[in-house]
């Protein structure tokens, strides 16, 4: 049991003893100063080994994009749709859980897409929240989807301490701490999820890559291993999760998806999924996996965070690439897909056999695009470039997901090619431009 778990237990015991003895003593609340830091901050060196970082990730749009221009990022004072209930939960954590020798740092990562990528409008979508607890090196210890209550947040901190301890005890055998986390989480699941967890543990044990798995000390390699496993694992769990929520919440139609988003604000909704996936995610570097993680949980594209102290200068590489092509040449940008969409079945508009025979299939589109320079872009790069060049806002998600942006020339407006539209028109246009 970790320090915080022990402390919580001791505090409860003490509380019971005090009330039993009727001493009339009031519990004195310690003044706790919660330390909110900007996203991805370097943490103070002091007691770093014992520090925990609680990261609240939401679909709010970061203030750096709010004014419709690339601006220097601000501090921790980001807008947050769940600010009030989250702070209420934080303030409800027993003060005994906080020690100066084991500091808890708090961060809010707003990763919602800015208006420049949502058609210029503020997207009216329910708020979303994920909480990740990491150690001082941003290694994932615990994961939580929804807004935690004070009790849940306290338990999360206690669990994170346990996970860290197991991780340290099994530096050379990461699969051992995976099993320890799984053993703990198994007790909190229904039978179907237990079975799925055990299936995944067996699969992990049987995996030929397991013997070569990165050691926890080699964080980069360990994280890469986690990333390789994460996509297939998430895709498998998604099937069970959708069946689970269908039965638990009476969600039967595709249109019920919006209800599911709202329900995911409540922690119980994705709890079994979270408990199942956490053992396989623990130890990975959150900074490297958060985009994949969040896009999997939300099944939405999100915005990557800029690094502290820098604005979007890094994104100028895209501008340079485009300018090197010359002003008259066509080119295309390929928009990075969320991990689950990349792996799952593409929601591509159907193409008739006749159209395919005539060269108007999806593969023909890829072939046509490859005749011109093409480059994969992140949402961040794209947003920054669009803003710098005063381009009109694009909607990456509606009416269907934009897969490519085609430019007749760097002076032209981008032409989005979407999954939901048969590719014949795009192919014809691209071929005409390329002639």
């Amino acid at each position: 049991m970790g320090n915080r778990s022990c402390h919580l237990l001791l505090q409860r015991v003490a509380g019971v003893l005090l009330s039993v003895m009727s001493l009339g003593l009031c519990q004195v609340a310690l003044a706790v100063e919660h330390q909110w830091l900007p996203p991805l901050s370097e943490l103070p060196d002091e007691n770093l080994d014992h520090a925990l970082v609680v990261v609240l990730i939401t679909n709010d749009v970061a203030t750096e994009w709010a004014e419709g221009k690339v601006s220097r990022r601000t501090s921790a004072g980001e807008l947050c749709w769940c600010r009030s209930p989250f702070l209420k939960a934080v303030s409800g954590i027993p003060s005994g859980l906080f020690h100066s020798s084991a500091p808890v740092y708090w961060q809010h990562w707003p990763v919602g897409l800015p208006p420049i990528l949502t058609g210029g409008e503020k997207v009216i979508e329910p708020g979303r929240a994920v909480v990740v607890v990491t150690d001082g090196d941003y290694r994932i210890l615990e994961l939580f989807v929804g807004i935690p209550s004070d009790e849940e947040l306290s338990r999360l901190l206690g669990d994170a301490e346990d996970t860290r301890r197991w991780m340290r005890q099994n530096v050379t055998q990461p699969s051992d701490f995976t099993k320890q986390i799984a053993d703990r989480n198994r007790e909190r699941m229904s039978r179907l999820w237990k079975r799925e967890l055990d299936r995944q543990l067996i699969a992990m044990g049987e995996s030929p890559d397991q013997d070569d798995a990165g050691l926890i000390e080699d964080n980069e390699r360990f994280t890469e291993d986690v990333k390789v496993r994460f996509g297939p694992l998430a895709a498998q769990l998604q099937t069970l999760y959708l069946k689970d929520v269908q039965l638990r919440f009476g969600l039967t139609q595709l249109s019920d998806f919006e209800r599911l988003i709202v329900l995911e604000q409540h922690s119980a909704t994705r709890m079994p999924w979270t408990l199942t996936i956490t053992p396989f995610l623990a130890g990975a570097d959150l900074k490297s996996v958060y985009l994949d993680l969040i896009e999997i949980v939300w099944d939405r594209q999100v915005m990557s965070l800029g690094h502290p102290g820098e604005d979007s200068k890094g994104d100028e590489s895209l501008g340079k690439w485009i300018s090197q092509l010359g002003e008259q040449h066509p080119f295309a940008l390929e928009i990075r897909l969320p991990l689950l969409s990349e792996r799952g079945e593409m929601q591509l508009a159907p193409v008739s056999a006749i159209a395919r025979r005539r060269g108007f299939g999806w593969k023909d589109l890829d072939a046509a695009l490859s005749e011109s320079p093409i480059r994969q872009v992140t949402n961040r790069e794209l947003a920054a470039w669009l803003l710098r060049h005063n381009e009109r806002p694009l909607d990456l998600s509606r009416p269907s997901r934009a897969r490519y942006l085609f430019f007749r020339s760097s002076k032209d407006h981008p032409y989005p090619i979407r999954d939901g539209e048969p590719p014949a028109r795009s192919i014809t246009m691209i071929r005409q431009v390329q002639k």
Partner: protein
Amino acid sequence: MNSRFLCCLVLAMVPVTASAVAPNALLLGSQLFEHEWQSQNPALGSDGLGPLFNATSCATCHRQGGVGGGGEAEFNAKSIGIESIKIQGSGLTSARLAEMISRFHPGFVIAEGSILNVLPLAHHGGTDVARKLHDAMTLVTSADYSESGGPIDASEVRIANASPIVFEQNIDGYQVRITARMYGRNTTALFGSGLIDRVPDKLLDRQVRIQQQHPEISGRPSTLPDGRYGKFGWRANVASLFEFNDQACANEMGLQTRRKKQSDDATNRAYSNASFDITDGQVEALTQFVAALPAPTRYVTHDQAHLASVRNGEAVFNRVGCAVCHVRDMGVAKGIYSDLLLHDMGSESIDLNHAEPYVVRRTIMDNEVDSTYAAGSVVGRTPYYGPATLLPLPVAKPTNIDVLPDSPVRSYRSPNSFDFVSPSQPETLVSFRLIDSALNPDTENNSVARQRSRSVATRIDRYERMEIEPTNFNQEWRTPPLWGLRDSAPYMHDGRAETLLESIAMHDGEAAGTRDRFLSSSYEDRQDLIAFLETLVAP
């Protein structure tokens, strides 16, 4: 003076529930409620507990928040409902049909050869064959069941719900395919049921009128064949607390009463109980005890933040529309949070022991028939859980009271196949109930004699003609009282919802708009509403 007597003395003094009742009667009722029944009852010369039963005492299941409370999913009563039957082959007779259905489970075929589409699947008792059939049925649902007999928890209820039972066999050249499903009923809490018993029908009518003005909600009373309104049970198909207890004795514990036969073991047709297993006095004492159980209460801490949250939660409860059906007060039943009406809860909340058809008009009519004709029989039903559907037999002859000589005759004869799909609405919109029958002494001057031009002995049958409004009766449920909610998980009629959030999200049908308004509320409002619901606790 022992503690049980003291407890009963206190119950007898509780003013809100029972009328003045002697403590001794309550003591007897309390003892009976907790009594562990055994097979064989020498005092009455009957078979006592069983042969089929779900529990050995009332208190086994009614236990959450104290004796008389609700029960966990592990105590759910189970049933198997046939959704469809398809038989390919010619020359099918009623006897053959019954034989084929019996291969699936003989319990669907009731004593006189009629076939019902629902079979209560008792947890315990019966012959070895009955136990094997029980185990085979539960096995195919893929759910895990507790030793008590029900699914071990809400998640297992959901698994059972989602697992169709398919019986497919070639029997004597007939290709038989039956699809069925396991259904469950969660144990309801009995706290405050004495007050429910005293809610007059006119209050239900008032709620109907109020809801007629509502764009989404349209509750209706559970109209029983005898003209009364039902108020008890998930289907509100039992009119009084006495009848509820009477039927519970017979159905849950196999304690035959003077009015209600115990469940038969279909694998042992020759068996019959020599007498009743529980006296009227005992049923009455049980009823008095249950009626005297205190009503649930509210629990709110003194923490100001919690109080504010609960107050806001109640406001949200009213604002989004929960309170339209979950009416706070129904006469003496203060804080019940139910209108005791039936509501369509959507297609995901189905059970083939349907609600009573909605009788909207009743008229009396006489029908004079040849006295040698058999009088109409009563339609087979399992009223405790709700009526089941009588399967049409593969003959054109009318077989039940629903089909009077002047009514259109439904024929299910087909040369090469037999098809049955469990109806989602009443199939006949006019039904008849025989209320009196008398021989006509005048054999010369009666309508049949005139028609036949000769003297005929006739009988005049007096029927109540009931006009029925079609409703989705498989998915109509009584608004469950919310009092005592915190201590009555899991939720919904079969306990498929583990949490209040799941339960609210499962509201559909008439309640879909209310559910959506709840989900459109802010996260904090939703949490506050749940906090408010959690203040409704067992007494």
